[in-house]
């Protein structure tokens, strides 16, 4: 996955992501596709979650999956989640849960709770940073005010790091893939460097959803695992998403 939070010169915030999933789950050598990614694309849906006839939040989901991977709470915050691989992975939390140790939160269910209940960027950040979880993750948040953007790197127990937007010091965007931001990504899966380069080429003056879509459509940020691209703008409570396919030649991940 690749998530981006970016701020334009006026302080307007944009949040976008590629959802990549299906690695090692069956490579179709005839069509150069991942079998599971192909099956996920037809079930991508935009959801408008309403209470009393009014929107509480909007999300992009896989039909049948009740948790949240990509969402916007209008005029409040935007959210996306990237997978974080770890030896201390979610299967340990799952076994603990089955054995009766149930103090941790499931990723998808915690994020539902955050989108339903958090009333500010800060509150969402606190909830996502501090709850014990069954699995590690990267949470990417955008707010409504200049500088409100964060990558929360989570272990199962705690936030290992929170990296924030800092436009006053030149950090006008944050880009997160599937590796800790204080370490170099592996050379066989470096989507961060090309993504950062394309964002820098875009420049802060051109920051808007169409230009960020260009970055997310650039290989290898776009790859054979990419199922959809979502674009969000918090002030307008806007979310739109597009099924993505990566034409050959294209890196498998």
């Amino acid at each position: 996955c690749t998530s981006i939070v970016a701020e334009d010169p006026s302080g307007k915030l944009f949040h976008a992501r590629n959802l990549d999933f299906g690695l090692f789950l069956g490579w179709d050598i005839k069509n150069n596709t991942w079998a599971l990614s192909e099956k996920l694309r037809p079930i991508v849906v935009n959801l408008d979650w309403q209470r009393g006839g009014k929107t509480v939040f909007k999300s992009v989901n896989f039909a049948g999956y009740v948790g949240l991977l990509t969402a916007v709470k209008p005029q409040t915050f935007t959210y996306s989640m990237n997978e974080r691989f770890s030896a201390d992975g979610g299967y340990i939390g799952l076994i603990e849960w089955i054995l009766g140790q149930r103090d941790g939160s499931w990723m998808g269910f915690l994020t539902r709770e955050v989108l339903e209940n958090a009333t500010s960027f800060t509150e969402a950040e606190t909830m996502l940073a501090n709850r014990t979880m069954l699995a590690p993750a990267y949470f990417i948040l955008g707010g409504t005010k200049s500088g409100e953007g964060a990558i929360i790197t989570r272990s199962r127990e705690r936030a290992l790091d929170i990296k924030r937007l800092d436009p006053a010091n030149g950090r006008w965007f944050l880009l997160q893939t599937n590796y800790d931001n204080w370490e170099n990504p592996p050379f066989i899966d470096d989507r961060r460097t090309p993504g950062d380069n394309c964002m820098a080429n875009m420049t802060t003056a051109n920051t808007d959803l169409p230009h960020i879509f260009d970055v997310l459509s650039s290989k290898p940020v776009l790859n054979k695992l990419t199922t959809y691209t979502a674009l969000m703008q918090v002030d307008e409570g806007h979310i739109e998403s597009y099924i993505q396919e990566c034409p050959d030649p294209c890196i498998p991940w």
Partner: protein
Amino acid sequence: QAQVPPFTEKCEHGMYPPKAESKVASYVINLDLPPAERWTSLAKEKAPQIRDMIAEIKAFAGAFGNGSIIALVDKYLAPLADTLPYPFADELKGIAKATDIPLGEVVLFNVFYEFFTV
């Protein structure tokens, strides 16, 4: 034809808007409905595609352990639903009912992230 590292990096321009057929359709989830009914309409409409996707996961899992993993899913993951916090257990049961997919397989899809992060 798949490209292997080191790849050629090129920043795309003018990709937006993408083709109209790639735009994702929108649905409403009514949080005022009982959890078991919130997903009924969407789940029924997408049932064939959800079944296809879960079949793919089962085919992958079935490649290991001669189908024993699938048997474990059906046996142990359905009861797991009742340990999940409100309202998720009821939502998953509603989806299973609407799609006619075994509850254990709906649970598997919803906890797949926890399985997969190793």
